[in-house]
Each structure stands twice: as structure tokens, then as C-alpha cells.
């Protein structure tokens, strides 16, 4: 399976704290993306980082990518109750002959307590 793995599976923090979740994958990638999903809803794209990038920021989000370790992390700073959701990484692999095969990691369920 090309599915990535995320840890922790579940994370519970107080509002205002930082949340860090990690994604590990098995094969080389073209890019890695992070998505958020509120319960039973569609996924929302957060950030895309390409294989030649090491760090990317978007508002309160910081993503790092270490291709030598085949891992990425998502940091959410100054968390809010509205950040409560599941977070998934998704990878796109060079072996894909269409460039349109995105495989999702196992996900981290984040709960931010007000």
C-alpha cells in the first residue's frame, strides 16, 4: 500500500497550545499535501509542499518535509476550538503515470478544548 501513516492517531490539547502531527510515507514523492476534515464532511486543502521544499508556512500552519526520512510534520500554532477536526496527509508519487493518484495517510484526530 502507498498509504502514509500519521501519528499520533489522536491528540487533545487546550486552546492556545500548539499541535504537531506527523506523517510518514514509504516511497518517493512529487509533493505532499495536508487536508482537514470536519466530522462527516468533505476534506479541505490546507497546504502543499513540493519534494524540493523543506518548509512552508500559511497563517498559523507550518509544514516541514524531510525526504531523506520520508516524513512530514504539520504544526498548528495558537490552536482554537475551531481547529478540532481530523487531519490527513496525502502524497503523490512519481511512479504514477498520470500524476493524479493521491494517497491519504491514516489521519490524526485533533481535539482542541476551549
Amino acid at each position, binding site marked *: 500500500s502507498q*498509504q502514509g501513516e500519521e501519528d499520533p492517531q489522536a491528540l487533545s490539547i487546550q486552546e492556545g497550545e500548539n499541535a504537531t502531527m506527523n506523517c510518514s510515507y514509504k516511497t518517493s514523492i*512529487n*509533493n505532499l*499535501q495536508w*487536508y482537514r476534515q470536519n466530522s*462527516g*464532511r*468533505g*476534506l*479541505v*486543502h490546507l497546504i*502543499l509542499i513540493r519534494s524540493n521544499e523543506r518548509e512552508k508556512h500559511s497563517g498559523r500552519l507550518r509544514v516541514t518535509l524531510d525526504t531523506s526520512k520520508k516524513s512530514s510534520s504539520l504544526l498548528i500554532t495558537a490552536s482554537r476550538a475551531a481547529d478540532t477536526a481530523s487531519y*490527513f496527509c*496525502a502524497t*503523490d508519487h512519481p511512479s504514477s503515470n*498520470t*500524476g*493524479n*493518484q*493521491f*494517497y*491519504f*495517510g*491514516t*489521519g490524526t*484526530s485533533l481535539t482542541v478544548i476551549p
Partner: protein
Amino acid sequence: DTEVTQTPKHLVMGMTNKKSLKCEQHMGHRAMYWYKQKAKKPPELMFVYSYEKLSINESVPSRFSPECPNSSLLNLHLHALQPEDSALYLCASSRWRREKLFFGSGTQLSVL
């Protein structure tokens, strides 16, 4: 318009029924996707259409039949489903290869 619209939002069907899920986007995206998601699991890729042609079929059983009538529409025809096919079915689109996905809110399917 940056939306992907899926209908219906909920669907209950028997194992002998035939039904269809519909997905629509008007962003001019050239790739469209069907994903299946079971509770507390990640989305699993089912099909990919590129320029209205089926480019990826992830070994999905033939009781699921995708169709892309035009560049804005994607259907998933369902026939003789099993209870284990109950899941959230998500449609997504992207401008082209290796770009971010825009998801619809999904169809929650229950097979009785």
C-alpha cells in the same frame, strides 16, 4: 465558483437497487476523482478521470460504474451493492496533475 457539489447528501438503498451519485464542478478542472471513506478511516481512491477519460481504476468492483458525461460532471452508478459498501463517497477535482484537490461534502450511503 470554487465549489464541488455532490448530490444526494444521503442515500439509503437496498442490495437490488440501482442508484447514481452525482458530482459537479464549474472551475474548469480537468481531473475528477471518486474516493470512498469508511468511518474513522482515510479516503481510499476509487477512480480518476483526466480530460473526461478514465485514467485510474483502483481495482474497484464492477458494481461501481463511473461516468464522466462532460468536463463538469461526474457520476457514480451503483448496482447490486453489498452492506459493506456503506460509506461516505467523496468527489474531488483538481486543475490538473499534482495540484490540490477540491472536495465535495460527500454522499453518505447506507446499503441495507
